[in-house]
């Protein structure tokens, strides 16, 4: 199993993380501050980092930035205080892979770790890139998104979008371990806007529960509703166009 570095200024939380992740079989490193975390990261280079945002001294975002600067492929999941959408957005802007709210719910943590592992697995297996692929299912164009939707994905997305010129609706189909970052959100928003402008409905499927708040916040769900069931999403697109 992979090694996870947890950075949090709360000792009890660190202790619980250690037990918790240990139970999953992860090797857990802990650090009580951003500076300590970076030192541990430099020494051990863990592939997954969990970091609290609000910390005295060096805060989570600085840690995130520093880690991404050293090793961009590191999966960094930030822990935000409850409902800190702004911080979540800021973290996504700094290419955090995911974020989870405090208090940390088991499912959310599992899902986030699952996605992170999935992306790491994928990256190890296939290298990077090629995360975006277009396909047509009946009249609806489907854009499959694997791994991470980020700034670099834009040309792929645009290309895929062009391939679906004659589709009546577009479904953004995220794989379960797919992530999206700040730039990715911008791209998604602009594509959704383009769809709407051209009179074609758009929908989102499969993005983790966490991101819904962000989509809401950025108004993407207004343009492209998110569905948890793929069939419903296809039916929505078909119905709207007919």
């Amino acid at each position, binding site marked *: 199993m992979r090694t996870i570095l947890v950075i949090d200024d*709360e000792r*009890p939380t660190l*202790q*619980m993380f250690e*037990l918790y992740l240990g139970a999953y079989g992860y090797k857990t490193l802990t650090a009580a501050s951003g500076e300590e975390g970076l030192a541990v990261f430099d020494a051990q280079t863990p592939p997954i980092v969990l970091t609290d945002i609000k910390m*005295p001294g060096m805060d989570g975002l600085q840690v995130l930035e520093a880690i991404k600067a050293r090793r961009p492929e590191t999966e960094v999941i930030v822990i935000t*205080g409850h409902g800190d959408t702004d911080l979540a957005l800021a973290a996504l802007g700094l290419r955090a892979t995911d974020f989870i709210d405090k208090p940390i719910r088991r499912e959310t943590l599992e899902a986030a770790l699952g996605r992170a592992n999935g992306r790491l697995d994928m990256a190890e297996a296939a290298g990077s890139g090629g995360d975006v692929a277009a396909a047509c299912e009946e009249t609806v164009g489907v854009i499959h998104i694997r791994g991470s939707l980020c700034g670099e994905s834009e040309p792929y997305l645009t290309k895929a979008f062009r391939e679906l010129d004659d589709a009546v609706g577009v479904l953004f189909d995220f794989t379960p371990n797919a992530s999206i970052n700040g730039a990715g959100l911008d791209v998604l928003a602009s594509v959704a806007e383009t769809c709407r402008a051209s009179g074609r409905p758009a929908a989102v499927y499969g993005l983790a529960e966490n991101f819904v708040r962000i989509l809401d916040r950025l108004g993407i769900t207004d343009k492209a509703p998110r569905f948890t069931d793929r069939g419903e999403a296809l039916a929505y697109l078909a119905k709207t166009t007919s």
Partner: protein
Amino acid sequence: MPFLPQRVSLKLKMFGGTMAVVLLVSAVIAILARWILVTSLNRELEQRGVAIGQSIAERASGFILDKDRPNLVSLVFDAAQLGERKVLVSYIFISDNDGRILANTFIRPFPADLRGINPLPENKDYSIDLVDFDRSQAIDIAVPVREGIYTLGAVHVGLSKSHIDSLVGKLRTTFLGFITAVTVVMFLIVLRLSNAVARPLSRLTQAADAISRGSLDAPEAMLGLSDDAIKHCQAYADTDLPCWHFDQNRGEGEPTSQAASRTCRECRFYRKEGGGDEVAQLAESFSNMIWSIRLYRRRLRESEEKYRSLFDSNPDPVFVVEAATGRILDANSQAEAVYGYGRKELVGRGLAELEPDADGGVAAYLADRDAPERVLFPKLRHVRKDGEPLYVNVHACRIAYRARDAVIVSATDITELVEKDAQLIQASKMKTLGEMSAGIAHELNQPLNAIKMGSDYLKMVAETGGLPSPVALAAVTGQVSEQVDRAAAIIGHLRDFGRKSEPKLEYVDINEPIKGVFTIIGHELALQGIEVVLRLAAVAPIKAHANRLEQVFFNLVVNARDAMTGISCPAERPRRLTIVSESRDGLVDVSVADTGCGIPEAARRKIFEPFFTTKQTGQGMGLGLAITYGIVRDYGGEIEVESAPEKGSVFRLTFPVARDRGERGP
């Protein structure tokens, strides 16, 4: 005069004394006069008798030698009947040496009683003797009849004793009559004199008694003086006008204007020259004095009524408290209304009953003889009759009241003000709680997060059908318990902070509210990179409300935070908040120092004013420091600020140490 009883009136003394002297003098004169007059009268008559006898003896010698008895008889008859002698001379007879009667004037037989009486001694010119004859008395004067060296016989002339007695009696009657007349005249004169002195005096006495009894009406009538002058004296009728004759000591602070300094050219009332003797003058002076007393008493009463009405119409309760006993001597009607007692219930009641929190109230002032004349006790807690508390500002002032040391206590009811104050403080606390909510959420989330993770972990282990290792179980349960305590402590702290303060002050360790602030925003300060240094060395308790003090420190800490994290503050400055508490000689000092941007000189004087804020509109009401100031002053504390731009600010708070902790306990 010790032998005269004191209560004998002056009149009697004068009268009796004078009469006694008059009578004594009269008696002496009478005795002297009688002695002199009667003696000389007797002697004169005797001499006359002797002369008659000698003249008869001279002429009788020839007739005796001739034995011519008829001539001898005619001689004695002639001598006896001559002029007035017949009244005076009772008898004349001539006897020879053998005692034979040669001639006599008796027309009846010669009384045997007269034979041999009054014998003439040898060689004496005459002899006088009182003799009784025929049931009457006579003074017998014997004169010898001589011829050459021979004695022929004796002539006896009997002077009528009754005639002499009647002469003497007449003389005595006349004299006594005169003396009596003198005495009566003296009596009348003395009576009049003594009346003239004693009657005005007794009138004065009566008048003085009447004054003593409080009756000052009509002194003229009382003293029997005419009262026409009164009608002409302005000062008499109008008590605002002083009589300038009497009232010499008026006018301290009064304008010496023309009107005030004028003097009646001729006082019609104060007329000493008006006449009469000394007693009458005394009566007039007395009358003037009564008039003057009446004037001043009236003025005094007016003054008393004026101050009484001030006392009664005072909108605040006013008490007069005896300094020695602390008992209420008098209270105004407002005191009845505010405290709910009747005046009769208030009078005699100890003031201490109205202020159960006796520390530092009027009771202490009464006991402290060195206290200043006037003092103000702010925000004292008093209790009404029905047990309701009320808050008063008390002015106490020492006075003399009916010859006793007393203290005037004026209590202004500020209950409403205190309640409004409490509401304002409460509102500001609620606002603070609102401001803290993000921090509170964060603080609460931390333990909840740990608990959640711990329980999830246990659940996960349980789901897999295994058992957690004893070490892990101990760690999780330990943490869960600890974190629940932590969350409960935060919630408890919030509840304490939000609680409305009881009106009564508590004993507070000043370090507690300081620490309390950091349980809630300590983490937030740390997140903002502010280093907090606490050096809490104060040990003495102060009397205050812990949660209001926390509000004070919260305001100061938040202000310090804003000063260090504001936009105008360069980020590279060190961010350090230092709070130092210490106790020293009856005071507890706390300083809250920051390394922020400081307060500009112009703003420093205004920072404690309400609604003054340097923050942007919508960021602050400007009430934080004003409320802070109010709270600190409420606990008898001081707050001052030192600040220099770019060097940070220091807020220094000083509180008096609670003094009576030992005896009353917390």
